[in-house]
């Protein structure tokens, strides 16, 4: 390295060795994060303990009991089912809707750009506040959506306060907030595709459906995968919207992983069960994020290559 030899030739009192420099630069960031890794390990320990804040004297290791009891615990299966259902429904609907909107806005025009910027606004709204907004709009007394529902014959439609429609309501809020996320990633993807294949197809008079399924979709796949996994990872951990809207209710209709763990910790003060729930959720997200990171890296390399 010429730079290194030049530097060595220069007299100077204080010098950091070249090998230590990168470590020194990243050290402060790492130290902050180690403080965050410790609670993670603590969670693992708690998850193997019988630990209730209300009975600190009875705290002891019960090894796998927290996990084993999940197998026969209908509340756990409910949590798993609602979490997967919520994540599945939101991601599929947001993907379809996001792709459709991205294709509507694909052509660069002033109007399209203006609309795509407007659509960012729900995404930039805090999810908890978005849930509040929808709560006001679905209030049975004065909510405008309750009124609109009554106009189309749904008298006394209870939205989030009825067990049969609570999931639908929070899914609707999630779609409102996060569809723009998928939309802008796919829009960026669509606009970065090479134009030649499309021109050739148009010249040959290839039908539109063929172009969409055989050219657009395959070329867009890395973007779709990245956007989908991003959303899946967030959606399976959704807390803000559900907690702000219904606090997991009515009953235990919407006790997804994080909401259930929160209620276990703060209401039933069952730290052990709460930690075990979080470890299971972490295992799911760890598995998903490994797939995600591979895709994300490939896309990132491509983006850097173009730069």
């Amino acid at each position, binding site marked *: 390295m010429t*730079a290194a030899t030049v530097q060595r030739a220069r007299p100077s009192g204080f010098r950091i060795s070249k090998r230590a420099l990168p470590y020194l630069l990243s050290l402060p960031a790492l130290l902050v994060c180690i403080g965050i890794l410790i609670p993670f390990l603590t969670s693992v320990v708690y998850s193997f303990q019988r630990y209730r804040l209300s009975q600190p004297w009875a705290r002891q290791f019960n090894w796998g009991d927290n996990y084993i009891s999940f197998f026969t615990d209908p509340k756990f299966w409910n949590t798993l089912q609602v979490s997967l259902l919520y994540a599945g429904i939101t991601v599929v609907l947001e993907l379809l809707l996001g792709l459709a909107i991205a294709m509507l806005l694909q052509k660069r025009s002033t109007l399209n750009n203006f609309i795509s910027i407007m659509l960012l*606004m729900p995404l930039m709204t805090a999810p908890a506040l978005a849930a509040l907004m929808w709560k006001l709009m679905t209030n049975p007394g004065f909510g405008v959506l309750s009124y609109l529902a009554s106009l189309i014959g749904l008298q006394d439609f209870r939205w989030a306060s009825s067990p049969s429609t609570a999931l639908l309501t929070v899914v609707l809020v999630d779609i409102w907030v996060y569809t723009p996320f998928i939309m802008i990633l796919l829009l960026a993807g669509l606009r970065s595709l090479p134009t030649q294949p499309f021109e050739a197809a148009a010249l040959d008079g290839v039908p539109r459906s063929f172009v969409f399924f055989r050219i657009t979709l395959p070329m867009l796949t890395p973007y779709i995968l990245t956007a989908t996994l991003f959303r899946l990872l967030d959606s399976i951990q959704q807390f803000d919207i559900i907690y702000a809207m219904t606090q997991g209710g009515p009953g235990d209709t919407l006790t997804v992983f994080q909401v259930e763990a929160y209620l276990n910790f703060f209401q039933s003060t069952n730290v052990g069960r709460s930690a075990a729930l979080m470890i299971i959720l972490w295992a799911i997200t760890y598995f998903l994020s490994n797939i995600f990171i591979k895709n994300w890296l490939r896309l990132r390399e491509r983006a850097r290559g173009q730069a």
Partner: protein
Amino acid sequence: MEHTSLLERVLRGIALTLVVIFFMFPIVWIFMMSFQTNETILRIPPQLVFEPTLANYTALITGKLETASGTLDIAFMRNLWNSVFLSVTSVAVALLLGVPAAYAFARHKFRGSEDIAFTLLSFRFAPALLVLLPLTLYFQKLGLANTYFGLIWVYQLICLPLILWIVRGYFEDIPADIEYAYRIGGHSWFATFRKIALPLAGPGIAAAGLLAFIFAWNNFVFALVLASADKQPVTVGALAFITSSGIQYGQISAAIVLSITPTLALALYAQRYLVEGLSLGAVKG
């Protein structure tokens, strides 16, 4: 593409209109509610035309709410200030810690560098409560519970990975030769970092900072778990608002409008960088 029939254009127009209505309606509606009195809000069917009033905003800003049963104190301005303070400080700390680290990861392939970078990235995807619940117990022991210091530390979970990965990409885009040339001129690495790398990556760093601000501002769960009323930001404060008695719906709407305006304004300003930021640098907009 140019031979679109009239029918198709009409259908596209209708579809786009529906999309715009669905995504814009809640914001417009809450905005309108924030200028109404409880009387007009409770009217059925909902009114599109009403006499706008600023009473909701004055009540929030003065912190005094006149109700039939007396004067009520609202701490909303306190929440708003907490949001500003927590977000600004968290981003400043994250920039201070994250930019040098991003530079190290971009320029030096040292042992374990990729592993460390990915560990940091994985924080973005780990369930927040996994860390937060044990942290509440630790914070109580350490005396960090309900302190700005503790909150800002935890906010690094959101801000650091974002800044690290976006800024790293910007540093990687700077050709290393420029820096070598400057160093051969006899300058130290620090001078190179300060005079060459930082200014060239400047716009990226600014964008990453704005995005980190938006994410910190919008965060809900950290403060819900770790802060009491006097340290809570708007996201948590507004929720407590809706359950407290005597509060009127117009005031809640006005509080929501005040809470979402900063992030919406910043997003419009930084929209060019949003795609890159939201995908943590994987997609260029």
